[in-house]
């Protein structure tokens, strides 16, 4: 453009609607350019899977009698248990970063000044964050699945059903942890505090609470109980701590997805920029 020309007509049409691929691309640009965050995602997803299978392969190669094949359904299940915990950490990191990035840098104010709906600004973070997160976990999962299959030797490789179920479960973990972190961090406006609270809650406090039988039905409201219910049996191992119906699990997951998102969106719309 030539900014020395006269001003254009006021924009018409649907450019200011809530959904905008341009806003999502802008959010993706921010994530892509955060080298530290990308390195953390890499370190929490793809790298551990590669390292784990390489070590298992070396051990098996050095002493096959003592160490079984690196692959197999069993090792795949173990790797997914590990990847599941890392998924939660990575989801929290990405969610908290996107939830507070603009605000922390003071750029949220500049975005609001454009006149664009605050809800649209918030909503664009969801597909952008999930896109990056699911891509990383897709690759990590693929590494694990391929290695577990190719390196199974005489043992059973993971079945197609297990692969599919595991992929869905990991995707669910990534989505839920990301969405909770996005909502909570948007609500309290602090990346560090959000990460601390959520890591403590999701990885320490909640697993402990799930083991306290006296809490009764209250445990069913926890997201950890619902994700355990949806976890593949081969990955879960000893069985879920809290028996609950599939419908209840789906409802709890939906609530833990919608409520933080709604709270974050509300705060984004109503806060002083």
């Amino acid at each position: 453009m030539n900014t020395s020309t006269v001003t254009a007509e006021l924009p018409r049409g649907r450019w200011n609607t809530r959904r905008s691929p341009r806003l999502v691309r802008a959010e993706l640009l921010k994530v892509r350019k955060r080298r530290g965050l990308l390195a953390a995602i890499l370190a929490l997803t793809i790298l551990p899977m590669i390292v784990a299978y390489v070590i298992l392969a070396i051990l098996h190669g050095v002493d096959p009698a003592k160490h079984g094949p690196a692959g197999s359904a069993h090792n795949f299940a173990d790797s997914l248990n590990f990847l599941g915990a890392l998924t939660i950490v990575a989801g929290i990191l990405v969610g908290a970063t996107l939830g507070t990035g603009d605000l922390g840098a003071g750029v949220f104010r500049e975005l609001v000044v454009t006149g664009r709906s605050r809800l649209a600004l918030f909503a664009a973070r969801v597909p952008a964050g999930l896109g990056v997160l699911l891509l990383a976990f897709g690759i990590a999962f693929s590494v694990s699945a391929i290695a577990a299959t190719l390196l199974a030797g005489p043992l059973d490789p993971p079945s197609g059903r297990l692969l599919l179920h595991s992929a869905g479960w990991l995707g669910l973990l990534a989505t839920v942890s990301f969405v909770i972190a996005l909502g909570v961090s948007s609500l309290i406006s602090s990346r560090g505090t959000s990460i601390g609270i959520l890591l403590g809650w999701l990885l320490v406090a909640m697993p402990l609470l799930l083991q306290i039988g006296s809490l009764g039905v209250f445990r069913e409201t926890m997201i950890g109980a619902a994700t355990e219910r949806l976890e593949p049996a081969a990955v879960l191992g000893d069985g879920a701590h809290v028996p609950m119906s599939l419908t209840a699990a789906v409802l709890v997951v939906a609530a833990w997805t919608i409520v933080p998102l709604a709270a974050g969106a509300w705060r984004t719309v109503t806060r002083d920029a």
Partner: protein
Amino acid sequence: MSPHERVNGRARESQGFVVETTGLTKRFGDRVAVADVDLRIPRGSAFGYLGPNGAGKTTLIRMLLGLTDASAGTMHLLGRPVPARRAEALARVGAIVEEPRFHGFLTGRENLEIIAAAREPEAHARIDGALARAGLAHRADERVKRYSLGMRQRLGVARSLLGDPELLILDEPTNGLDPAGIHEFRAMIRGFVAEGRTVLLSSHLLSEVEKICDEVAIVDSGRVVMQGSIADLARGGQQSVLVATSDDARALAIVSGQRAVDSATPGPDGIHISLAKDVEAQPAADEISRSVVLAGLAIRRFEPVQASLEQRFLEITSRLEEAA
């Protein structure tokens, strides 16, 4: 009708004010930051919003831009009610509020891409032109964390141009600029006005507003205490005359007793005579010169002294302090 208006066929809009507020008020608890402000900013002007630090300038701008809600009153931006039609109005508003902020890990160009994505689709095509206009084209692909404060201000200007704004709201925009940068900035603002854009410049720097703006509102403790053209406001101040004669001591004695004279002070360049507020300036000056000549003194210098906006501003604020 200006070419700007003719080209865009917006004659109806041009008849109004680009900013119009009525009774605009913002309270933080018991403290009133902006008090009952009625502001009218004419289209195509450089308008100064002048006041000391803490006078409520930034709060007013934040309300206009929808960054914070008003406690009372109404606002119109570009003829549209805010907040009801805020998005539509802000589409043609560019702004720098306080210090412009950016993502330091992104380049200047990428930061503009982020903002362009939030604006109309055509905004993206304006990035290169905006960077060139702000004098940043050659540094656009460097990360902003390496930018100096002055470069960030320039990038802020570039960003504010992405919406091809009819109205630019600039809050203390020369902060952090060196003298050459300030000079360039003034020219840039005048250039915007020459294109038909309106600039609202908020500043506590009197000299800055006086050099750049056509009109000014003086704000103090959240209230607009005076509004008008720079010349009118300065004229509204106390008139004074500088007189040098063949015998200043005698001249001083002659003029001191006159009704039209409020005070007369001798100085190295002559006698500085402040005229009484209730007299017409020209007849009073005529009376002074006549009395000096009739006393047999030769007049070597006789010139009205134009009050600067600074003098006027000090008069107004000191009067407010006395009244308080």
